């Protein structure tokens, strides 16, 4: 059928609507198949490349799997039912497992405190930067461009890299971590804040301008009251993220419970590894639940991505 239809598209047996439909369908089908084949080939190439470069070979995996199992088994605490609530000296009790609890709690407090303090500083930084970085509020194009780029830089460089730099500059300890997390938060929050600003209602601002208000008056009385609930909920969301960040930033010496975790993992204090990891997970989960509750009071459930 096809050769004749191609030779004479308007006459002959292949011109009925059904035939034309069939032809069109076959064409689309072929196009789709070609596309699928192309993307499939690209995908397979990427997969092969990744396997090659990361040594993800069955032999290596088979050799590694038992070691992973052993390690996970090693870090599990030895708990026995009869001694479960005995003192710190009895092997098999919870207290023996968490013998270092006072130290852990102190570090945990430091971690949460670091996260909260950096969130406050980051929120203030993001707040100061966001108005000039919103398309509709920026006083001029130059400021808009500069603030956008500064914020982009702050949030694109990972916290850990900032932390390494600050450890070098201000020494080992929580201050380096606070500075790193604050800068990253300021960049990330500034972007979210400026997106909120871009959806703001302009009528209050126009009213203030009509009454003779300056740019600062417009922002203070026209924009801030509208955006504050959203800002608050974004800051809380950032606090959840920062708790995670501050619990690992100690890996490079920037304070918090991560420093202790790095130490016990590297020195193979097996039971302490699981004790610390469980403690961190529990803290992160608690903070998530609490902050989600508070957030939903400031803003509807649906609006947060």
């Amino acid at each position, binding site marked *: 059928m096809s050769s004749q239809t191609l030779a004479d598209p308007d006459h002959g047996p292949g011109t009925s609507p059904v035939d034309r439909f069939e032809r069109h369908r076959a064409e689309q089908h072929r196009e789709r198949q070609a596309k699928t084949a192309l993307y499939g080939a690209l995908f397979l190439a990427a997969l092969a490349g990744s396997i090659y*470069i*990361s040594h*993800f070979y069955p032999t290596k995996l088979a050799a590694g799997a038992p070691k992973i199992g052993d390690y996970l088994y090693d870090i599990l605490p030895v708990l026995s039912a009869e001694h479960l609530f005995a003192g710190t000296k009895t092997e098999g009790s919870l207290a023996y497992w968490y013998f270092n609890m006072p130290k852990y709690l102190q570090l945990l407090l430091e971690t949460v405190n670091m996260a909260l303090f950096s969130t*406050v500083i980051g929120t203030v930084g993001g707040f100061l930067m966001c108005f000039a970085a919103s398309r509709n509020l920026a006083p001029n194009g130059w400021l808009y461009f500069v603030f956008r780029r500064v914020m982009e830089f702050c949030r694109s460089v990972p916290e*850990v890299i900032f932390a*390494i730099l600050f450890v070098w500059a201000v*020494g080992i300890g929580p201050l380096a971590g606070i500075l790193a997390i604050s800068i990253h938060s300021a960049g990330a929050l500034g972007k979210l804040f400026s997106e909120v600003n871009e959806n703001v209602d302009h009528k209050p601002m126009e009213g203030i301008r009509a009454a*003779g208000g300056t740019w600062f008056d417009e922002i203070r009385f026209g924009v801030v009251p509208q955006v504050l609930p959203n800002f608050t909920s974004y800051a809380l969301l950032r606090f959840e993220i920062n708790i995670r960040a501050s619990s690992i930033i100690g*890996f490079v010496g920037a304070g918090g419970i991560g420093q202790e975790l790095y130490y016990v993992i590297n020195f193979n204090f097996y039971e302490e590894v699981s004790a610390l*990891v469980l403690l961190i997970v529990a803290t992160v989960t608690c903070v998530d639940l609490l902050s989600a509750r508070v957030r939903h009071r400031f803003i509807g459930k649906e609006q947060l991505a």
Partner: protein
Amino acid sequence: MSSSVATMTAGEIAALQARFPEALSTDRRRLWIHRTVAAGVVAYLGFCVWVFDITFDRLFGGLGKMWIVVRSMLIWKDMATWDYLGIFQGLAETLGMAFLGTFVASLFAVVIGFAAARNVLPNRIVHHSIRRFLDLLRGVDTLIWALVFVRAVGLGPLAGVLSIMVSDTGTLSKLYSEAVENVDRKPIEGVRSTGAGNLKIYRFGYLPQVLPVFLSTSLYWFESNTRSATILGIVGAGGIGMQLSERMKVQYWDQSCFIIVLILLTVAIIDTGSKWIRMNLIGKREL
């Protein structure tokens, strides 16, 4: 401010305040609440400054040191002697780790995602235990997993792949199971009414609905994993982070800066590329 206010007499203002107390008088209780909150915040900030020992000297002495670092970051010396092969191999490792980790995690997540969906396995105990297990995988940060896997399988990108794989299995399974729970029942009932077996119900009832969601979710997480894979090397799990932290340790700031710029570029390219794929292949979908 405006002239109309200035021309009003004090008596007129008082009369207006008496007429509209809610609009024109200050609410003393609210004022006090605001003041207390503000005082609390200031007190907390002061406490933090004290507890973290943030002194003027430390901060600005540190900034002085930072200035030296920034300056030596911007002046690139002896560029011909840099180990470009190692740097670009590290970059390739990072991308490979993110890609493979996300891919394998997606495979696991398809199975676990269906198992964790309430409409597929209605057993409450099974549902809850799978969900809590996934929470645990997710709750432990990728960097902690990386540290654990470096201990178990040694330094190198394999530890990075495994850490991304494990933490993403937690995340993706949860997101996949939510997608499965949100399917439209009608096509499934339609397929079932034709007398199809269980396998066919999943293939023609569920899969066409959830596959686009699965794909775009995985692509989105590939994007985010590229970002986290850049730093996994700091604990020895391969990738560009390993190159970066080695150079930062020996204070090759110019090379470090080059690598940071490279990371930022790569992340930007991957972001744009994956956004394009998501838009074009799967259609616009809010995550």
